[in-house]
């Protein structure tokens, strides 16, 4: 190779790149607040958790409550529904999850009532698996809220919750 004296970086090249890099960092620092302002604000994030009295929900009934602006289904499952949820070959499911991983107490199923396809609210005690049926594009969920048919990719999500007493749950 010939002497590289003519292509050797000069002080000017260095200053040019350093200035350009600073300008890029500055531009990114200005753009970020413009993008990030759209994310949920402090008051939305602070939305408290919800406490629900479940003592009055009879066996076989599904109650819908509102949490973070979304519906949450609380299903007091009958022995038949529990059995249907448990007697499934998990390996055959689209989003494989045993019923035991989705409940804290088998008689209470608590899931977010938002279809994992495009966000509609499924209707309870409907569809081929007697769980939920989404009227928007026909997704079918079973009594454990797991996706069984239709376009939705995932099971109904289980929110964070805890039993405060036997009849009181705290969601969130």
């Amino acid at each position, binding site marked *: 190779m010939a002497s590289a004296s003519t292509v050797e970086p000069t002080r000017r090249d260095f200053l040019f790149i350093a200035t350009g890099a600073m300008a890029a960092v500055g531009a990114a620092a200005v753009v970020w607040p413009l993008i990030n302002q*759209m*994310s*949920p*604000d402090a008051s*939305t994030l602070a939305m408290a958790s919800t406490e629900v009295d479940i003592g009055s929900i009879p066996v076989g009934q599904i109650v*819908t409550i*509102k949490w*973070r*602006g*979304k*519906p949450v289904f609380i299903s007091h499952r009958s022995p038949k529904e529990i059995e249907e949820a448990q007697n499934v070959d998990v390996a055959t499911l689209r989003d494989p999850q045993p019923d035991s991983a989705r409940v804290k107490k088998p008689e209470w199923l608590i899931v977010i009532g*938002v279809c994992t*396809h*495009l*966000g*509609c*609210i499924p209707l309870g005690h409907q569809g081929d698996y007697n769980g939920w049926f989404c*009227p*928007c*594009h*026909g997704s079918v969920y079973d009594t454990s809220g797991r996706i069984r048919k*239709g*376009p*939705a*990719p995932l099971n109904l999500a289980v929110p964070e919750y805890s039993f405060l007493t036997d009849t009181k749950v705290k969601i969130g």
Partner: protein
Amino acid sequence: MHGHSTFEPKNGFVKWLEARLPILSFSHESFVAYPTPKNLNYWWTFGAILSFMLVAQIITGVVLAMHYTPESTMAFDSVEKIMRDVNWGWMLRYAHSNGASMFFFAVYIHMFRGIYYGSYKAPREVLWILGVIIFLLMMATGFMGYVLPWGQMSFWGATVITNLFSAIPFVGDQITVWLWGGYSVGNPTLNRFFSLHYLLPFVIAAVVGLHVWALHVVGQNNPDGVDIKDVKKDSVPFTPHATMKDSLGIAVFLLLYAWFIFFVPNYLGDADNYIPANPMKTPPHIVPEWYFLPFYAILRSIPNKLAGVVAMFAAIALLAFLPWLDTSKVRSGKYRPLFKIFFWIFAATAIGLGYLGAMPPEGGYVLAARLLSVSYFAFFLVILPVLGLVEKTKPVPATIADAVLAKH
């Protein structure tokens, strides 16, 4: 291209202005002396109709915004107030909501015109792509506008459409939360949609400016698909010829528009949108505005979330690639006997998909939507590339003047 006349300022003020900002001579070149092909038919008036509709939407929109409240507890009531209390409010709102439908009706005709006569072919690729960008911006604007009255369809349409982004692998959920400004569609969503709904029409106006600029560089296509060779023989000056023809086209279009406003103002809307938004209850049957139905049908025909969303966006994106997918050397469909047949099959496919998009996603409707989706994509990806290689086209006239004389 040389025009039919040149602008000769006589008056002193005009001369003074010309030396500083030659806007009058520019307008003269663009809208008076500009050569328009002699053989244009009425399908060519839809560009002017679209320009008219854009202005109509901006004017009615700006006055509606004087009475509308973009806040989730007040939006619905403010629209009802526009309907009942504001002077002429009902008319302005009906003009705006039906105006959106008229706008899309005109743009679909304009696009089918372009496809039939091969207007996307060289040298009009950039012109065509700018058109596809306008179409996308219109869809975003129409969608966000429909959310503003905050009825049940507004809310659930917004939920379903924003959730399309949750199909993006890995970051989809974060993106939807960012779009919403919360954990579901809510007041922050309504607020930003109003801001963008106000902004985008002006962006559209700017892109329309580029679209017309590109048009005036390459010249208009025409039903015979041959370029102007001799300005005197092949073309006529824009004014009065195109000006008058466009005015007649707009006037007839206005009859239809006025008929919708005054006789069937809610025909194209959905009754559920007169029910205030309820985040706890999904209406039994969600349908988007009619102008989105073909794409909605494609989305629903695929029983996999990501694939459905990809197919829907691909159906729109493919339009931008038409200049390269169509391999035929002959521009106008008038001289392509096989293309003509497939064009009408494609038009029927699009209308059929529109019909199926409004039907419940069950049984035979799903199967039909799948077949038509295949037909839609086949037109772009199989028919157009292959047809150009195998089709035996009819002889194309040498000049526009020849084509016109041959008819008489």
